[in-house]
């Protein structure tokens, strides 16, 4: 196994993309993800890649659209306000059915907000991709190593479904350092695919990358095709991790940095005699609804922990369908939930006892 190196989440994300064969990056500076473009500016030229600082996030995502249409493994990264600006381009990318990876290192909001950690772009990510019926396949790593690994997987998923994939993290994961094991950098796959533009079109039928379908039936057909891919992702690219007690009375559900906090809290609560289990979705869309429904039929209560005002908990409640009470513990605005907060909450919930009818 390779030696561990101490890396920031931002650096691991950038290096993970290069290692996965990404050779094109278009972005615009915004805290707390600036180390990604800085890393790309320094290291992409080493492997014959292109780093370009766009004039705005609007331009950056449209450069990504063009590069993806031309067949490249291409990425951009930003943070919440910048991701808002990218929604238009993401909608075109969904409609035109081209693959790309977008990293969102979420910060406190709304508005200019602050540069503290937050998970308040959950809806923007999982319901987003701008206007229309499209969405972003969304994955939420929870460590520096997972950022490195998942940005690579994200390219494979994006190309499998010819769709944008969002890596959703936050200011803590972006800026924290942890040991990370690196792989050798892979060569990018060939540019030419049956649908790409560019190269020599005289040897084939000309290709058109387009999201304009004036005929309503044709547009509906495209929408159904896109939805069918999401259904396939629900079967083939659904990821979650569980840890803790095998026969829990309380199920804790959290993703990303909140799941890190909960991991420690669940360990402490179990030591204190409260049987808890953590379910951590890595894929947020597709969402592990079926697995949650199974647990909801078995546990007394569910606790959801998130750094937003009750966005993630809605997906949990949709999956649970009232089978058991679902409680929310949250902080926002750049504040974090600590392991002490979660442990105290779990002990309180256990002391309250009756949750479901029994």
């Amino acid at each position, binding site marked *: 196994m390779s030696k561990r190196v101490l890396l920031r989440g931002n650096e691991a994300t950038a290096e993970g993309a290069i290692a996965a064969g990404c050779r094109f990056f278009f972005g615009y500076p915004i805290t707390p993800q600036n180390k990604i473009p800085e890393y790309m500016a320094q290291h992409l030229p080493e492997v014959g890649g292109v780093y370009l600082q766009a004039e705005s996030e609007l331009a950056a995502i449209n450069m990504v659209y063009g590069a993806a249409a031309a067949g490249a493994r291409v990425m951009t990264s930003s943070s919440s306000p910048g991701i808002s600006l990218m929604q238009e381009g993401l909608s075109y990318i969904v409609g035109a059915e081209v693959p790309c990876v977008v990293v969102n290192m979420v910060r406190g909001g709304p508005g200019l907000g602050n540069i503290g950690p937050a998970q308040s772009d959950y809806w923007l990510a999982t319901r987003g991709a701008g206007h229309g019926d499209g969405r972003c396949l969304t994955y939420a790593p929870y460590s520096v190593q997972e950022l490195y690994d998942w940005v690579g997987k994200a390219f494979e998923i994006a190309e499998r479904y010819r769709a944008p994939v969002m890596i959703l993290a936050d200011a803590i994961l972006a*800026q*924290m*350092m942890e040991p990370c094991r690196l792989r050798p950098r892979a060569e990018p796959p060939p540019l030419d695919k049956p649908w790409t533009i560019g190269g020599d079109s005289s040897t084939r039928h000309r290709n058109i990358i387009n999201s304009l379908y004036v005929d309503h039936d044709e547009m509906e057909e495209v929408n159904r095709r896109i939805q069918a891919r999401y259904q396939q992702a629900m079967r083939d690219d659904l990821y979650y991790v569980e840890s803790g007690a095998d026969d829990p009375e309380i199920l804790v559900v959290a993703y990303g940095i909140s799941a890190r906090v909960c991991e420690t809290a669940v360990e402490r609560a179990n030591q204190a005699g409260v049987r808890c289990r953590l379910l951590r979705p890595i894929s947020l869309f597709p969402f592990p609804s079926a697995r949650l429904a199974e647990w909801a039929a078995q546990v007394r209560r569910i606790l959801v922990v998130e750094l937003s005002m009750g966005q993630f908990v809605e997906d949990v409640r949709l999956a649970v369908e009232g089978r058991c009470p679902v409680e929310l513990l949250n902080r926002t605005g750049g504040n974090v939930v*600590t392991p002490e907060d979660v442990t105290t909450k779990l002990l309180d919930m256990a002391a309250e006892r009756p949750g479901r009818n029994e």
Partner: protein
Amino acid sequence: MREELFMAGTGGQGVLLAGQVLAQAVMEKDLNVSWFPIYSPEVRGGTTTCTLVITDGLLGSPITGHPTTMLLMDGRAVDQHLARIAPQGLAVVNMTLAPRLPSLPDVKIVTIPATDIAITLGSERTANMVMLGAYVALHPVVEIDELAAALDVLLPERHRKYLQLNVRALQAGADAAQQAT
């Protein structure tokens, strides 16, 4: 073993670098470690903190509400942070810049004249290493020479000429901590 170490000071005092040096040295010992910084928007002169979690088990949360150990570089850091140290916690305070301390019955406080020592060594800017040396003398997660090896990895090229000075500061900090306890 689980150590939750919190370091705080003013931008420019080298709090983040000291934390990284420790994280690097801990990683080389095959322990799990996380380093997580918070800085204020101003590049110089704002408050700067970092949190390290060091463990031989599951790392879990890189965030902690009540750190087990604090390294506090000045009076502002003491005023802002000392109160939330865990019971039976250890605080190492740079008494050159934090002459007045609150009395906390449950906390072990070790005062080190880190800035004075650093000035004597030849550079006020090595006070961060004096504090780090004091910390590992009190809580030996790594040895001084392991920190020196980590510095060798992390010091940017333009600062390599200060490597030996920094190593002397680490040792001076360790000596001061032994005298203080």
